[in-house]
C-alpha cells in the first residue's frame, strides 16, 4: 500500500471512482472508501476533485474526511494490525497485550514500523467479544490471541 503514485494518476483514478459511484444516494462515504482502498489513504489532492464533482465545498469534504477514524491522510505500512481496545478485550488482558505489541514493534498507536511493514491501529470492537482478546491483520480476524500468536502474525507479516 506504501506505493508512490504520480499526481496526475491520482486525479485520473479519483475521477474514475467518482464517475462509478456518483449515482448513489449519499455517495460521499462510498467514494472515500473506494479512494482509500485504491491508494491506501485519502490523498489531499483528491479532495478538491471530489468537492467539484459532488458540488460540495472543499471545507465540507475536508470536514467529512477528518470526522471519521477510518480515513487516513497518509500512507500506512504494508500491513495493518488492528488490536481491539474495548471492554470485552480489556477483561481478558487486552491492555497488557497491547503494551507488549507496542514494545515489540517499537511504536505507539497509529505508528508504522521503520521498515514500513506494519501499522498498528486501535479498534473499538471487532464483534468478537466472546473470543477476546481479538485482533485483525489486513482484514483477517483472530480471536483469543496471546502474545505468542501476535508475535507469529507479526513475523509472518515482516517476511
Amino acid at each position, binding site marked *: 500500500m506504501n506505493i508512490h503514485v504520480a499526481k496526475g494518476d491520482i486525479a485520473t483514478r479519483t475521477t474514475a471512482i467518482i464517475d462509478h459511484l456518483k449515482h448513489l444516494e449519499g455517495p460521499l*462515504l462510498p467514494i472515500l472508501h473506494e479512494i482509500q482502498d485504491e491508494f491506501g489513504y485519502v490523498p489531499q489532492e483528491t479532495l478538491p476533485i471530489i468537492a467539484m464533482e459532488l458540488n460540495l465545498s472543499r471545507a465540507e469534504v475536508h470536514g467529512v474526511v477528518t470526522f471519521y477514524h477510518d480515513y487516513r491522510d497518509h500512507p500506512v505500512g504494508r500491513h495493518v494490525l488492528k488490536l481491539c481496545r474495548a471492554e470485552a478485550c480489556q477483561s481478558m488482558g487486552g491492555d497488557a497485550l497491547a503494551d507488549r505489541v507496542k514494545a515489540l514493534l517499537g511504536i505507539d498507536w497509529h505508528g508504522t514500523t521503520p521498515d514500513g511493514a506494519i501499522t498498528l491501529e486501535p479498534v473499538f470492537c471487532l464483534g468478537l*467479544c*466472546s473470543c477476546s482478546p481479538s485482533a485483525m491483520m489486513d482484514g483477517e480476524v483472530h480471536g483469543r490471541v496471546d502474545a505468542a500468536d501476535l508475535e507469529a502474525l507479526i513475523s509472518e507479516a515482516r517476511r
Partner: protein
Amino acid sequence: MTVRIYVPCDAAALALGAERVAKAISEEIAARGLDAKIVRNGSRGMHWLEPLVEVEVSGRRIGYGPVKAKDVVSLFEAGLATGGDHPLCLGEVEELPFLKRQTRLTFARCGVIDPLSLDDYEAHGGLAGLRRAVSMLPADVVKEVTDSGLRGRGGAGFPTGIKWKTVLDAPGERKYIVCNADEGDSGTFADRMIMEGDPFVLIEGMAIAGLATGATKGFVYTRSEYPHAIATMSRAIDIARSAGILGTSVLGSGKAFDMEVRTGAGAYVCGEETALLNSLEGKRGIVRAKPPLPAHKGLFDCPTVINNVISLASVPVIMDKGAAYYRDFGLGRSRGTIPIQIAGNVKHGGLFETAFGTSLGELIDDIAGGTASGRPVKAVQVGGPLGAYFPRALFDTPFDYEAFAAKDGLIGHAGIVVFDDTADMLKQARFAMEFCAVESCGKCTPCRIGSTRGVETADKIARGIEPKKNRELLADLCNTMKFGSLCALGGFTPYPVMSAMTHFPEDFVPTPLIEAAE
C-alpha cells in the same frame, strides 16, 4: 447420499481457525474419496466450541468442537462422516444444554442453514412472514407488529409498531427503511451473527417494513470492522433481487422495495440514529436535535423507519406466527425474546436467545459457567460502553428493560461483558470517559468537554489528589452529561462511571502514598 459437513463461516469461527479446518476437511474428503460436501453455515453462538464442526447423520446434527486443523485426520479416522465417536464429539448439537435452554425465534436458522441458500431459508420457514404481509393491508401489518409488543432491540426499547405507524401516516412521495447495523458496543455481536448467519431474515424483515409503511428503499448501515458481514449481506441482497424478493415487485405484489449495504467509517457515534442518517447522506456523523423525528424527517428529510438489525430480523417470525405467539414470551412490558450476548472473561461465551426475564446471575453463573480465568466475578457491564457495571449484589435483576432501568442500568443491545476480581473499576470508569471523549461528535458541550474533564478527574482520583473533592466533581460532571447531552453517548456515559463509583467505592479510594511507602 452426500454427507453434509458443516463448518461455520461466522467471523468468530474464522477468528478461531475455521478456514484452516475447512481446508483440512476438504483435503481429507478428497484423499478418502468420500461422498461428502462442506456447507459453510453461520454460528450456533456457542463460541467456546468454535470452530464447531457438525455432520448430518440420519437427520440429526452431530457436533465436534472446538476443532483445530490438526484434529481433522483423527476425526475422519474416528468416522466423522458417520457421526463416529471422538474425544471432541459433543453428541447431538440441539441437545447441548446451552442450546436446548434457549428460545430461538429470531436466531432460529442461524448456524443451522447455509446463509446464502434461499432453498435452505425457505425450507426452514423463511419468507412465510413476507408472503403473509404481501396479502395484507399496510395498516394491518403495522398493527400486527404493534400487537406483538416488539420494542427496539438497539437499546432504546421504543415500540417498533408505533414507529412504523408514524411513518405509514406521514405524507411523502419517498420513504426509507434504514437498518442500524452499526453495532459498535463492546460485548455485542448479535447483528453481526444474523448478517453472517441468516442475512435473508433481515432482508425479509426490511421488505415487510417497506410494505407496511410505503417505503421503497432500504439501507443497511454497518461497520467497516465487519468485512465478513458486509460481504455476506451484499451477496444475499443480490440473490434476493434475482429471486424477486427485492425489486420493482416484491414477490409479485406489484409493490417495489430494494435495498443496499452501506459501510460506516469507524465512528461509534454513527450508531446513534440521527448521526447515522447524516453519515448515510455523506455528512459528518453529527447528532441531530429531535424533533423533527426521523419518522417525519429522516433520511434526506423523508419519512424514515430506523430500526436495529434484531428488531427487523424479529419481524418475519411475528408475521409468520402472529403477534400473540411472540407476545406470549417475556414479562411486563418486555415481550418476546432477546438475544443475549455473553462475552469477556467468561467460560461459555456466546449468544443466548431467551424470553425476557432470566436473571443476570443465572446467565453468568449457570448458563455461562462463570469466568474463563476461574476467578470470582467482580462486575458485569450490561449494554455496551454506555451500560452500567453491576456487582454480584444485583445478580437477581431479571433481564428486562424496566428492571434494569430501576437499578440505574440498561440492557442496551443486550451484551454482557464479565470481569473477574482483577478488574480495576476506577480504570474502567476512566475508560468510559476516554471512549466518550474519543467518539464524541462534538456537537454538544456536556459530551465534548465533560468527557475530557472526566478523564482528567479520574486521573486525579487515581493519583490521590483531593480524592473526596474529585469524586464529588466526577459525580457532578456525570449529572451534567446525563441531563445536558444531546444523545445517548454523552447522556449514558455516566452509567458506567457512576455505577463503578457507587458499587465499587473501594476502587476509588487510592492507597495513601504514606502507607504504600511503609
